[in-house]
């Protein structure tokens, strides 16, 4: 999925593969349809990015959000990780009513 803005001298490119919306001054451009998703640890390798903008429909439960993320990145299927929204961990049955920054965190077991 990608978007192109058609004004001559403004906005450049945009995609959902890890690139922010950028205006001609280099500042991030907000799109209400898009939600920022961050990946931690080995999930960065599995998704190929540490952060990206995805289109996610709210409200949504954390469990359904996980399915949505797996739709974008099939390599996440079967991986063990928790989801945080706006830097707060959420249980899988929590319903998220509005977009926030999403973080996907695996736990590191070793000592």
């Amino acid at each position: 999925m990608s978007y192109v803005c058609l004004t001559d001298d403004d906005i450049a490119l945009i995609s959902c593969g890890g690139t922010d919306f950028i205006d001609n001054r280099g500042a991030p451009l907000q799109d209400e349809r898009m939600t920022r998703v961050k990946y931690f640890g080995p999930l960065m390798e599995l998704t190929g990015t540490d952060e990206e903008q995805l289109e996610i429909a709210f409200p949504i439960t954390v469990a359904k959000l996980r399915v949505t993320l797996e739709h974008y990145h099939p390599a996440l299927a079967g991986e063990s990780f928790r989801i945080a929204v706006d830097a707060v961990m959420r249980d899988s049955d929590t319903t998220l009513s509005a977009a926030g920054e999403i973080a996907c965190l695996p736990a590191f077991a070793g000592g």
Partner: protein
Amino acid sequence: MSRPTDALREERYRRHYELLSQDARQRLLSTRFIVAGAGGLGCNLLALLVRVAPVQLEIWDPAVLDAPDLNRQVLYTPQDLGQPKARLAVERLRAINPAIQAVGHVQSLNASSFSELHPTLPQPTSPAHSAVLDCLDSFNARAGLEPIAHKLGAPIFHGGVELWYGQATTLLPGSSYADAFGADFAGKPPAAKPILPHIPAVIASLQLAEILAWCENADSTPLAGVLCVFDGRRHRFDQLRWD
């Protein structure tokens, strides 16, 4: 068992003595630190902790030293291969600070093994406080720490490392691993084997910082209810609340 804080007036503690309150000094000396795991996290954490004070340690680890351990387990040398790490750690820590009170147990720490050693708690001679230092290498093993901490009313200072990454958090009495890592935490997969030496060094330093914060205020530490995640490839820290 309370010990006079005069023990921290020795010259060797002079660089940090004034940075600790009287209450923190007292708690450092009167706490029994129950250490689960003498591997990468345990070695780094203990090598620092015994430099802060002549602490009381119980070190639990069933394993013997294996050659791949030498990349990060900083208390050991190639001459130690095949020897139990719990005993080696006690020997090396006593060399760093002869005033510590340390005992090593060459077995896993769980409710059963702990009860065998301490059939009645609290005992009249027990330390005033206990703290559990989680330096284990699997979440399944960590499940065995909770009943001990619960029985003692002790906090758990958690560290976990893997690949280029690590995390630290503190479980004050009343909170659990399930709160921090989800209800299925004990079933999380074991750690991937690769690990670099700077990862446990960073996470162990955070664990020590939390221990010192707890000594200052047992009701609140910066990482109580907060997971601090370290990315050792991008040198980035993030914090996320779990309480």
